[in-house]
């Protein structure tokens, strides 16, 4: 793969009591790529996100961001380095208007330092910058949507708001935890170019997904997790051709069906 490894995950293990959620998982993420992580339910996808971003502490192993060990640091310090995440179950501030959701990340030390997304080192008025980011992420600027109370927004906008919160921090790496789930086909269709544009703007992305067809459209490489262990890593074709993946993930007949749709 081209470029430097921006994130190195080394032998990360996480146990919850007797349950092994992650078992010595290692992988690299390279600068500027989109890495897809797939796996059946309960295979440890969200746990690996939590371990990287500090929301849970890994039982053993290391996570290195740009060569610096970030294992065991609190979430806000890791986010301050530019490693941001979305939540699978959306976590907006429901009581605030949509654009005020972005005032909060824009208030952070990192946003003040970097100026936020497209800030170029200078942070303007937080409300205006917030609405700029929302517009770029697909909120209609001249409509009332950015000003609506967040609790009244549909799922599609909330998923975008999750991404927008990452952008407000001017991220280097975004870990998307199922941004396509719960969206309609047309909503996903409009999200795909957005993801591609972010990658083109130089952001590295890790995408955790169940929607394989859309994931294979955007991801450069795919990694498969099963029962907390890494099964395979490679291009979409390589991964799909692997018999272990067929068995563990899809069941043997389903593969043909998914592949023909892809």
């Amino acid at each position, binding site marked *: 793969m081209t470029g430097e490894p921006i994130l190195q995950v080394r032998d990360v293990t996480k146990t919850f009591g007797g349950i092994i959620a992650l078992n010595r998982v290692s992988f690299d993420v390279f600068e500027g790529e989109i890495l897809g992580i797939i796996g059946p339910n309960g295979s440890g996808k969200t746990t690996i996100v939590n371990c990287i971003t500090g929301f849970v502490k890994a039982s053993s192993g290391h996570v290195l961001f740009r060569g610096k060990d970030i294992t065991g640091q609190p979430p806000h310090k890791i*986010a*301050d380095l530019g490693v941001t995440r979305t939540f699978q179950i959306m*976590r*907006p*501030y429901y009581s605030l208007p949509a654009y005020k959701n972005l*005032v*909060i990340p824009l*208030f952070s030390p990192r946003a003040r330092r970097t100026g936020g997304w497209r800030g170029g080192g200078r942070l303007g008025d937080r409300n205006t910058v917030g609405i700029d980011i929302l517009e770029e992420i697909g909120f209609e600027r001249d409509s009332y949507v950015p000003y609506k109370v967040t609790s009244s927004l549909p799922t599609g906008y909330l998923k975008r708001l999750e991404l927008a*919160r990452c952008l407000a921090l001017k991220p280097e790496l975004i870990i998307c935890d199922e941004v396509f789930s719960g969206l309609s086909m047309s909503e996903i269709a409009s999200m795909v170019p957005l993801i591609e544009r972010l990658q083109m703007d130089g952001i590295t992305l890790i995408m955790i997904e169940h929607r394989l067809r859309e994931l294979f459209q955007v991801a450069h490489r795919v990694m498969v997790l099963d029962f907390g262990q890494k099964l395979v890593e490679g291009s979409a074709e390589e991964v799909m051709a692997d018999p272990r993946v067929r068995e563990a993930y899809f069941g043997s007949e389903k593969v043909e069906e998914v592949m023909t749709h892809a």
Partner: protein
Amino acid sequence: MSTDTASRRQERIDRGIKVRTAGLYALMSWREVSYLVLPRLVLIVGMLGLPMMMPGMYWKRVISIVCIYALLALVFDFLAHFVGLVSLGGAFFVGTGGYLSALLNTKLGLAPLICVPAATLLGGALCTLLLLPCLPLRGVYFAIVTLMYPLFLARVIEALNILGGTDGIMGIDSFPNAWIEQYLVIVLALLIVFGLRRLVNTDFGLVLRAVKDNDQAVKASAMNITYYKALAVWIAASIGCLAGACLVHIYMWAGISTFALDFSVLPIAATVIGGSGTLVGPLLGCLILVPVSELLRDFGTLRIVFYSLILLGFIVFRSEGLMVFGQRKYHQFERWTSI
């Protein structure tokens, strides 16, 4: 009646939209300006005029106590509604601020007008420091710890017989004159009401509200939530200690009863009655509850029974609180239109 409603219906219109959305429009007519200014003016003039309407020293003193409780109720409302911390710490803050001011006055001989701000700053810092361990936790822990400290400190003073023991600290100087004594707390209560209302709408206040809404998202936004909670607690504890410091100089005595749980519980009841989340409601709640509790003194032991019945009535019939109800009625009006 049925034919009546078939041809017309009631519609509800929000009166304040124009004034509240764009600041400049509000200055375009006297009606709009007065619409905004009038309720605030009523509060300010009413509070400042209140002592003059009171018949004697006793009721003037009651107004001061109302303001002390109002500060504590503000602290509760601010922490519970805007930071998401349920605080039972009224007694803790009053006791700490009260004893500190008393010590500064009697041991170091400082004037009350220096003791009060000093006790505010010192007490706020001390309370925040003592509460720091439970700030990273979510849930009921903050409530438990704030309830535990006043009980703990009162027993320590009693058992070790320090700081005057059960007799308390006597011979504390009063404020220089009756005017300062009366109006200091009133002006402070008003300043802090409007100050806090302004604070919660700044970007900093927005972060505090976000911590209440969703602390995980704030962490993911590269912000240390413990730091912001500590800042909020520091602001709240300082206001509580200020109330305590004023109280001991009004009574010229500081004792174990400054750690009494009345200071924790009455502000919560006042917030419920006045309307939580408005920051004016708690003040209004204290203006009702404290005098009512004084009036009920004639009933002896039955006082608590009547007091509880009044509280119950409010909770059953106006559970949203007076101020929330009042604000809605002020901003909206209803009229019949024909269909």
